[in-house]
């Protein structure tokens, strides 16, 4: 399992990245993230929706309502220009962290600490 703190920290980049693939709605976003992580991350509604609303309040997302035949309306979210910039920033930050960790885990020869791999 992925610890709570990491789930909480990654929720914003996940949402932004899923929406970068195209317009989507809450249930679909949860399903997409669940699939991509092999079921290791599955948000509850009370986790996802307030974050979506707060991103919308900040202007990173915009939404539209689509009426459907059965049931109530469905709310679709998509990235704004501001949201795309925010996603680029997030991406850079996560890549920085990722690369730093990778360097530690797979040292390039020449920068080796001298320890033989186990």
């Amino acid at each position, binding site marked *: 399992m992925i610890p709570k703190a990491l789930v909480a920290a990654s929720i914003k980049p996940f949402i932004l990245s899923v929406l970068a693939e195209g317009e989507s*709605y*809450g*249930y*679909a976003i949860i*399903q997409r993230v669940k699939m991509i992580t092999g079921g290791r991350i599955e948000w*509850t*509604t*009370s*986790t996802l*929706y*307030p974050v979506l*609303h*707060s991103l*919308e*309040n*900040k*202007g990173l997302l915009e939404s539209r*309502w689509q009426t*459907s035949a*059965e*049931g*109530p*309306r*469905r*709310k679709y979210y998509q990235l704004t220009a501001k949201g795309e910039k925010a996603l680029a920033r997030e991406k850079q930050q996560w890549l920085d962290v990722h690369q730093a960790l990778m360097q530690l885990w797979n040292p390039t020869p020449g920068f080796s600490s001298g320890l033989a791999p186990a």
Partner: protein
Amino acid sequence: MRKSYSFDLNKALAAWRRSLEYNHAFTSDDLDELEQHLRDQIAGLVRGGLSEEQAFARAMREMGDYSTAEAEYRKVYWGKLRRRGEVRNEFIWRMAMLKNYLKITVRTLARQKGYAFINIAGLVVGLAVCFLIFLFVRHELSFDRFHAQADQIYRVVQQEELATSGALAPALESAYPDVVRAVRISQRWPEVLVTHDGEARYEQRFFFTDSTFFDVFNFPLVQGDPRTALTRPFSVVLTEEMARKYFGKEDPVGQTLNLKGLWDAHDFEVTGVVQSLPSNSHFTFNFLASYNTRFQTEPGAENIESWRYIGDYTYLRLDEEAAIEDLAAKMPAFAKQHEGALFRNREDIDFATWYTFQPITDIHLYSQYERELEPNSEVRYLYIFSAIALLILLIACINYVNLATARSAQRAREVGVRKVVGAHRSQLIGQFMGESVAQIGVALLLALLLVKLSLPAFNNLLQTGIRLEDAAFGQLAGIALGIGAAVVLLAGLYPATVLSRFRPAYVLKGNVGTGASNARFRHGLVVVQFAASVVLIIGTLTIQRQLDFMQEKKLGLNPEQVVVVSTRNAVSGDSYTTFKEELLKHPDILSITASSPALPARPEQLMEVWETRPVAGEELPLQASQISVGLDFLETMEIPLVKGRNLRPGDLDQMRAGTVTPVLINETAARHFGWTEPIGKEFGCCHHPTPRVVGVVEDFHYQSLKEEIDPLVLSPTWWSRFILVRVSTTDDLAGTLAVIEDKWQTQAPDYPFDFTFLDERFAQIYDAEERLAQIFAVFSALAVLIACLGLFGLAAFMAQRRTKEIGIRKVLGATVVNIVSLLSKDLVKLVGIAFVVAAPLAYLAIERWLSDFAYHIDIGPGIFVLTVLLVLLIAGVTVSYQSIKAALTDPVKSLRHE
């Protein structure tokens, strides 16, 4: 057969949605989104093979906890409004609601003036009492804190007594750098005769003190220099009051006052005037004279700074960095060094606790030594009064809670309508709390007004000098708001929860319910109110009875019709004999004697004599108190002689000759010494030739009834510190007094004639108890009054609710008596329960209080029976007004109504 039933997803979702609809945090957009989510999820689960019902249950479970969802949604609520530009609307809407709430509050109060009055009046009195007592407690806790370094000022206690040697202060100051200042205060002159402009007056509270007095204590001088005012001999510093009294508008500094204490009179130069003393100082003075004056006025002045000669109070101020524990640790060695010699360095003398230190801020509430500079209070009175304040406030709050919940039915429809149009429960709680805040706010303002008006009476009652001006406004406002907020929480929260709990579907159908659980709760609260009242009433009655008991108890002497003349030895010896002979010529003067100390004596005034001869084979130190008396003491005081003979003139000659001192003892002494035949017995004593018992008198009370009658020795004396004159019961007491004064003037022309009455002196020793009795009486009257206000309101409500029932009963033949007893039965039960709850508590409390008195009343059933009757009577009268009114109502009117 199993009942067939089919799950309808749409209905289930609609029900789920309704449960969230009243919650302000979820907008309808949010609910649309969530519902669609649920539908998607359920569809997915059904595809996976679950039934719709199972899928719904699972989706609900996975949705997570409702309250965390609400909290998360609340966080983004205002952001949503801002994004949509709806913040202003929200505010306008909220203001409109506020206006509506206010309007409803005012209308409700206006429609129910009687209840509003009862509620607010009770709260006003309760809050005012609470506030006054808070001020009192604050004042008591502030004692001596006005000194700049109050935390570093200590008083020295020597072997559990306050008297210390005049050598102590200088020795401490020079031996320990931590002791910044050590100051002696000497009451060598218990009073002074002040002569100025040809007029002589006795004044109290005259002290000798070191020139560094003002370095330790913060008593600002309005005139004169605090550093030099007390440096020269024969300098005196006055308080503003004394300066006004003797010099009027003149400048007192540099003028002289002729002062006579003990020994000769001297001229003193006024070197300063002290600002009026604050009311929260543990000691007060009228005059401070320079300590070094003593060396030039007292016979045996060389002893003043001897370690053997104790009598001064010693105060010291420590360095700010120093700790008193460090100084205390050095004291055993210090004591041994200085005082050891007096005891020939005996090894068995324990110097470990020879000197101890009392923080000056503890003196007023905790110090009860003999010879305190002024009588101190006790911290337990703070507890008692605080408890009373809380009880009264509790009673007032209970009124509020009871009336509000009782009348909640009237508001039920309003609550229903509000809920139907979308009010959330928290909004309703807010509304009703707001109403409480408004009412309590009004009550608070009125209470503050009442406090201001009643403060002089309260000060008079408690003998304090609390002034509102002394406290910072912010602090008072803080206290007021604090008490107000506590009352809002205590009184407002419960009714608000009850009111907001109504279910619209029920109340709008007219089904408010009898509120049985609320009624039980109300009854419980009434029990608490009356239990509190019962405790207070029992306290009042006990204190009053004990007071009556002490004032009426046979003292064993007759204090009526006795004038006590304080002579200060101005008329003594031969002049006393002449005075006595002259007075006895007057027909209204029956008999004259003298005594020292005056009766009633305080324990510390009694000289002690010892008998250390073997008693029953053991060397026992036997102690007795001693009073020096004139010859006709027994006749004048009307004390019966049991055995032997009375004192007679020849006895004084025997004393003068130095052979024996013929003395009288009381029965307790005879028993204590184990003498079956006491006449002729002699015992060891210090001052006189050997005392020999010539007579035994019946025990009489020579002290307060708090003290036991101890073994007592009456020894004859030709001195007369106090002259006791028994006068006949004549109409012309003033004339008789004039005769005594006239004879006094012949014997002591320079001295004022100063007299009191013996019965008054005996009554005065119970002043503290008298005051306590008054305070209890006032507070319990208030408590009962507030409780009755509430009961009155409740009774009115109950009678009103049962109007129809009463009408039907009357039609069916019930009499007025039946109806009244029907309505009063509950009340009697409640008072009964309250009594059962309160009586044991009250019993414990009064038993503890009474144990302070050596002679006290027995706690019989009388007080308890009286209390029950009193409470029943008061409560009965309160309720019966309403029940009789209800019972007399014409049933036609009450039944036709609907």
